[in-house]
């Protein structure tokens, strides 16, 4: 396996002074910085111990309920802490509405395959009225794509069964726990667009932006028209979350050009970005 090592070694003092450890954990370092730091901690026991502690602290704090802010503006992203709760409530509500309408429309058979969409007929998460232009964080907010359980008449293959089991977590809003099963299904059946699409959605909703981008790119390369528009749209959301505005605009443009159900939402985000 070829290796190229151009990265220069970092030292402990630099790690501390440049807040490298935090930057690394938050995925904010440039690729050369990341390489330098990794090379350093593969040899430095002290920095590695602190990194392990930092990673464990980060994981623990992420799962704690939000703490009250002591001062105005203390938690600039507090809304994100509650996003999974809102998302889960919205999803349950959407699922109920969808189930009701589907029962009325198709009493004898469930839909076998429906491209995902953000349900325009369902009220989405209420946003406080604001005269100010939305922030990048607000524009990056993601509604969970609606999921319709597919009921086939024949026996399910193993990948489908794994996928359906994992999606039980998804419908409950537990995206992180849905990932292993959905990923296993996508691994077993890499050309099934729905597996890759929901894998991307799970990653995105669980806050794992980079793997989400990989999954949505995979959908785009598969060229399945049922998922192309959604893949471009959610790719845009992922790039917004990474604050890569140009890439996000590009994906939004592609969404608009497909003239599907997400056209107006994508156009509105584009308009806000260009303000």
């Amino acid at each position, binding site marked *: *396996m*070829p*290796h190229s090592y151009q990265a220069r070694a970092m030292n*402990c003092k630099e790690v501390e002074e440049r*807040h490298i450890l*935090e930057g690394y*954990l*938050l*995925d*904010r370092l440039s690729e050369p910085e990341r*390489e330098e730091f*990794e*090379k350093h*901690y*593969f*040899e*430095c*026991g*002290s920095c*590695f*111990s*602190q*990194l*392990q*502690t*930092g*990673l*464990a*602290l*980060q*994981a*623990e*704090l992420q799962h*704690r309920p939000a*703490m009250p802010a*002591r*001062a*105005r*503006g*203390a*938690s*600039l992203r507090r809304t994100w802490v509650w996003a999974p709760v809102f998302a889960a409530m919205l999803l349950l509500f959407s699922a109920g509405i969808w189930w009701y309408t589907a029962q009325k429309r198709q009493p004898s058979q469930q839909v076998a395959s429906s491209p995902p969409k953000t349900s325009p007929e369902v009220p989405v998460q209420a946003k406080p009225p604001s005269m100010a232009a939305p922030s990048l964080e607000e524009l990056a907010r993601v509604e969970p794509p609606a999921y319709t359980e597919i009921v086939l008449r024949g026996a399910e293959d193993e990948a489908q069964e794994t996928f359906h089991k994992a999606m039980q977590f998804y419908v409950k809003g537990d995206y992180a726990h849905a*990932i*292993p099963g959905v*990923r296993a299904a*996508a*691994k077993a059946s*890499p050309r099934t667009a729905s*597996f*890759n699409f929901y*894998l991307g959605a799970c*990653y995105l909703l*669980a*806050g*794992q932006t*980079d*793997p989400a981008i*990989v*999954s949505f790119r*995979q959908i785009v390369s598969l060229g399945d028209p049922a998922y192309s528009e959604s893949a471009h749209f959610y790719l845009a959301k992922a790039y917004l979350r990474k604050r890569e505005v140009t890439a996000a605009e590009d994906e939004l443009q592609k969404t608009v050009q497909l003239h599907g159900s997400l056209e107006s939402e994508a156009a509105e985000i584009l308009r806000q970005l260009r303000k």
Partner: protein
Amino acid sequence: MDLPSATSAGELRGLAERIRQGDASAETELVHEFTHRIFVMGVVRTHDREAARELVQDVLMAVIGALRKGQLQDADKLAAFVHGTARNLINNQLRSASQRPPMEPLPEDLAQACRAEQLEDAERMRLVHQAIEGFGQEDRRILLMTLVEGHKPGEIAAALGLTSEVVRTRKLRAVKKVTDLIRKKMSRT
């Protein structure tokens, strides 16, 4: 000041050579030395602890395979070699997403050593949970705003009515305190 890792540079150099000569205990030592580092790197780069666990085994297998064949030309660069292998495999996985071909699994004795190392991860999480409980509200807030919300010391200072230097010092002190606690408790087990 750079502190040495658990295994000195000289021992690492010897490790590569011993593996080339077929010393099975050297392979176990390599697993102990690098499992945590590869795992942390995998978690940070993939944001997926399960995927990182799978990657640890793949990376170790690739490294051990290469060392057995004497493919590491400069034995002084064993750590860099492991890091490079980990980086390449992680990047391949991120690029090819779900299409990663299955790798040859680690032999059972090494896989067991690897799992034992990973059990420490659960113990570390328990200790961190306990340590956070012992922190005051303000220290917890500083850690949360730094490690989860990603604010700079100046922003945190402004929000909490402190100085940047105080925020920086308290953050470093808190991380060090937890690191020391983990080191102390886990060295006893």
